[in-house]
């Protein structure tokens, strides 16, 4: 299939679903579908660092927060100006421009944050890297708590609602295709070589520093975009949405599904998000259930539900040239 045909069909399908989905499944389920989508973006992108490059990061919530707040503040403070400049466009196009501007800013800001965290973290390995990424995430959250212009501890309200099923799942598609293509290119092989054996990778000419930072930056950019979509859907942001526990849930998603597999990350994101909703009626018992389930899955299936299983096989080897 030609690429542009694929994207055209995807756009049309998403638009059609956007217009009918809420009526079909009700507002509550619609919201869950949105949350699932955002978590898929976060999990698939986190998988790039943790699953493919083998660097243990538990600070994803920090980049998510940077994106969410950057996009929200841009649209909140710069929105009127952007609307003014695009007044000749219909409302829906104005909204799209605003959201795209927010997404763009979110990606850049979160990417810069990812770079800033990635560089110093390179000297650290394993659990030390883990705790430092967690620390960076918490530092970002505390900084946000102390900035009054974006609501501080009161939370940031009055964010225009711009994202919806169409946008969220368009980004889901883009994320999945990007990560899939990336890990099946020389970049992906470089990432995986670092995970498998960093010293051998360097000896084969893989600039491990560069690739590690790259996977941090790409991964954070997508987390930032997810943040933007989240803020412009819920119209309200609070630093507590970006506690390290959020990062934990993302890690849980990719490990439950099966580390280093895109399908696994998607499955994990769907499962965790939906399970938490299903258990909601049990009150505190909801997370008791969830946590015991988690422990049991990891005891009885430590490689994750899908393991290294993959739906989209990479291309087969070509026959040797004569």
């Amino acid at each position, binding site marked *: 299939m030609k690429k542009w045909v694929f994207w055209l069909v995807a756009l049309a399908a998403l638009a059609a679903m956007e217009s009918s989905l809420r009526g079909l499944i009700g507002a509550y389920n619609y919201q869950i579908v949105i949350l699932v989508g955002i978590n898929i973006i976060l999990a698939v992108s986190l998988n790039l660092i943790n699953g493919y490059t083998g660097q243990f990061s538990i600070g994803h919530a920090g980049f998510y927060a940077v994106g969410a707040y950057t996009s929200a503040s841009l649209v909140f403070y710069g929105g009127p100006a952007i609307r003014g400049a695009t007044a000749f466009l219909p409302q829906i196009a104005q909204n799209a421009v605003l959201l795209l501007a927010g997404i763009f800013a979110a990606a850049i800001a979160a990417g810069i944050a990812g770079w800033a965290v990635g560089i110093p973290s390179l000297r*650290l390995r394993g*659990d*030390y890297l*883990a705790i430092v990424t967690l620390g960076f995430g918490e530092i970002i959250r505390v900084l946000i708590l102390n900035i009054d212009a974006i609501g501080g501890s009161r939370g940031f309200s009055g964010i225009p609602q711009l994202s919806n099923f169409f946008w969220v799942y368009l980004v889901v598609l883009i994320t999945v295709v990007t990560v899939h293509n990336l890990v099946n290119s020389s970049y992906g092989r470089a990432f995986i070589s670092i995970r498998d054996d960093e010293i051998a990778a360097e000896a084969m000419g893989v600039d491990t520093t560069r690739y590690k930072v790259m996977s941090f930056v790409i991964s954070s950019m997508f987390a930032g975009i997810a943040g933007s979509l989240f803020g412009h859907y819920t119209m309200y942001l609070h630093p507590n949405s970006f506690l390290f526990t959020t990062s934990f849930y993302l890690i849980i998603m990719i490990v439950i599904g099966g580390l280093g597999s895109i399908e696994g990350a998607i499955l994990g994101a769907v499962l965790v998000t939906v399970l938490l909703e299903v258990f909601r009626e049990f009150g505190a018992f909801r997370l*008791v259930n969830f946590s*015991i389930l988690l*422990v*049991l899955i*990891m005891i009885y299936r430590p*490689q994750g539900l899908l393991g290294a299983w993959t739906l989209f096989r990479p291309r087969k080897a070509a026959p040797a040239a004569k």
Partner: protein
Amino acid sequence: METFLQQVINGISQGSAYALIALGYTMVYGVLRLINFAHGDVYMFGAFMGYYLANIPWIESRLGTSAASAVFVMLGAMILSAGLGILIEQFAYRPGRSATRFTLAFWFGVLGAGGGQLVGQTFASVVLGAVVGIAVGAVLEWLGIRPVRQESRLALLIIAIGVSLFLENGGQQAFGADPKFFPQIIPTTSLNIGPLNLDSQRVIVLLVSLALMVVLTVIVQYTKTGKAMRAVSFNLDAAKLMGINTDRIIAFTFALGSALAAAGGILVSLLYPRIDPLMGVMPGLKAFVAAVLGGIGSIPGAMIGGLIIGMAEVMAVGYGQSTYRDAIAFVILVLILLLRPAGIMGKGMIEKV
């Protein structure tokens, strides 16, 4: 100057509480190479056990506010928490490492008990639920569902996060989500040493923590079990080959660490009596930071790391922005690890290629 000295004392007492929790992190990391994220919640559990022990009517009426009651509460909570530590190790971390049994029965029993409480709200319904759960779990296990050998440290880490979530939310269900107030089990008086005005609680916290650290050091350095612990830390497989019962040593390590965390929980509750099921989250995280700061796996490192974090927090709150309090531990962590990637007391080693 006086206030500064007073702040130093406050910092040391806060820091020694962090150190008590950090010790458990560092010891468990030593034997299992596992960040036991549930450890902060054991600290919470210890505080709650202390709360319930102190509120036993018999204790209240007989012992009241006295040294005897304080000792009873403290030791009781430490023993109960040690038991919790052993349970966690046995049913969450050990399956997959050694051949264990009744894992499913245990967790299904817990689930059943929780379900029983939710449905019936009575003691009988909790017991009934537990029994049903245990039965179901035992049958499943009898049918051949067995843990998979654990080769992934990441899976173990997720288990730790799961146990942590379990304790936090189980705590909310069992103890109630509302905060409780820890009773005054020791009388508060002011001590005047020269120009310094110290309250007795802080001094006791400080002395008890120091005493516990001394006890721990003696256990680890001079007892047979302590030596075995160090051997397991150094190389688990080699220790096993030398005939050390590594599972027993690991269980002992969890018991010891959990008892220290419980002591920390009670000591902190003497200073800040408000306790709730989520109280372990932040101190747990900061104690872990303290352990990493000191060089994870190193016992003196954990003590030093705890003191640094405690001191820095108290100083920052006293002289600067208290709203940044929760970030301070992490800022220090980042700075120190950038200078010394293996922590203060950790040894940097060149990997042999």
